[in-house]
């Protein structure tokens, strides 16, 4: 199935889900002076449901469908996202400075950097500079980790 159709069907599902959730909040009636929290999200969900259906039908009918992203490109983006997720997980465990240096090192390598002197100096230099400016000067409570930085 084409990516465009899958995305449109997801929107249909999302619209349906929002509408059902809104009904549970209460849609209310202004005629009877009953205001409820679900009225506006219900209208939004209904709109998404209709637009999603319209888009799904349009994607089915017309040939210029959007294809799935190429595997090679998507893989690089996914790897970068993966490194970013590991960075956030490590942030509390090993401390901001070390996690940042490791993140910069591995993401630079992933994106094609091969000059080790450049990679190491930028990774360590940026991590230390950020720690000093943001943590020490601006007082942002960055995680210290086991080594105290």
């Amino acid at each position: 199935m084409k990516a465009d159709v899958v995305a449109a069907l997801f929107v249909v599902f999302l619209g349906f889900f929002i509408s059902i959730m809104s009904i549970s909040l209460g849609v209310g009636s202004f005629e009877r002076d009953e205001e409820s929290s679900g009225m506006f999200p219900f209208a939004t969900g209904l709109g998404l449901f209709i637009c999603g259906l319209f888009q799904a039908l349009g994607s089915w009918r017309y040939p210029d469908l959007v294809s799935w992203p190429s595997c090679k490109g998507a893989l690089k983006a996914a790897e970068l996202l993966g490194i970013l997720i590991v960075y956030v997980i490590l942030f509390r465990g090993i401390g901001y400075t070390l996690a940042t240096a490791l993140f910069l090192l591995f993401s630079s390598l992933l994106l094609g950097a091969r000059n080790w002197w450049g990679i190491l100096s930028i990774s360590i230099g940026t991590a230390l500079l950020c720690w000093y400016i943001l943590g020490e000067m601006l007082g942002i409570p960055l995680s210290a980790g086991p080594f105290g930085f």
Partner: protein
Amino acid sequence: MISIDFLLQGFGYALNPFNLLMAFLGAIFGTLVGVLPGIGPTAGIAILLPLTSWLNPTPAIIMLSGIYYGAMYGGSTTSILVNVPGEVSSVVTALDGYQLAKQGKAGVALAMAAISSFVGGTLGLIGLTFFAPPLAEAALIFGPPEYFGLMCLALSVVVSLAGRRLPKGLISAGVGLFLGSIGQDPILGNARFTFGSLKLLGGIDFVAVVVGLFAVSEVMINAEKVGAVVYQKITRLYPTLQELRQSLGAMLRSTLTGFFPSLLPGCAPGPISFLAYDIERRFSRHPEMFGKGAIEGVIAPEGANNAATSGGFVPMFSLGIPTSSALAVLLSALMIYGLKPGPMLFKERPDFIWTVIASMYIGNVMLLILNLPLVGIWARIIMIPYHYLAPLVLVFCFIGTFSIRNNLFDVWVAILFGLIGYLMHKLKYPTAPLVLAMILGPMLEQSVRQSLTISGGSVYIFISRPIALGFLILATFAVILSVWSRLRLKPSNLPQSGTD
């Protein structure tokens, strides 16, 4: 006359050394954002917005505004020297700018781009000084029904931000409206879509969404396509008096072309620069030279996009309507600082508004200086390999999002929206309508519910009030005009995803 008095007072505050420093930093960051391909003004403001949280509102907005108009200056440098537009509104500058550079006239092209940007930007600011206050004054009588009409007019921007794909733009806006409704109900205080999470009770942090959608996703997209650039040397930099005199007409025409459309919702600097180029070609005695190295082909888009940038602040400051995605992010910055853009801003915080406007005049002078003698340095920045730049951008995104509430939850939100933004880009869903709807959604809901409460549930209130009706007619007209012009134009002439 009153505007001038306030403006002079604003200059008094803007010339304070710290505000001057912020204007200078904004100009530097803005030029940098404009020079670097792949990081537009929207992403630039999104990245730096959380890092300004330790500042007072006035210096913070001075700096963030500087990024917006500074990016318009910087974008032309790489367009001319390396044929790589730094941001959308400089795409058309590359057509003639790069041809001039290949003919050995890079210096003159760069100088004319900077001077035209300065003229367009400064005349646009004069327009802002005189147009915004009366507009805000007129808007003081607005009640909930009028605000509902105004919000509908602002949301009509979605149609033009949607680019070629209207249903996708509407879906994107729908998702934004939904995201805006997460958290506490603004009137009754009930929890909505929080699934029992206390972190969601205050709503999804807007900055995390913007950083994810515009900065993280942008890095992911650009990580796929890293290429080499060919750099043209800079020769004679300063134009002669005769060259300046010959270009004056084009500068003034492009300023008018840029300023007036920018007052309307949906007219962002990007499309306006194309319009100005087309108008200048029609006015030219040598239209055949366009695309082969006509200096007017550089002057027109640069003057127009800077005038449009200044003009875009008129509806934003006086009515609270952002006319482009970058202004939508800037609007959110104002709201983060507890400032409600709209008519009351001129009444309640004249010190803030006039200091920011005055700082823009100063910022334009700074940018002219930064972009003339220092142009060579900016051009070399593009040589920074993307494999070093991209991870640094991500680190700033991370720390910026974290620093708002010192909360890792916001960082996870930014990463999630980075992925969503990447998928939206791949599936050709515009992201700007999502941001706009997320900002306007709560205001729209509040105004519609208050109006219906006043009228006892009758929707007649929206058409019985002349101003509300006028806005609704204008909104309908704007939608019809956008759809009609879309049907008339060839698909290739429409922006891919609006004005991202």
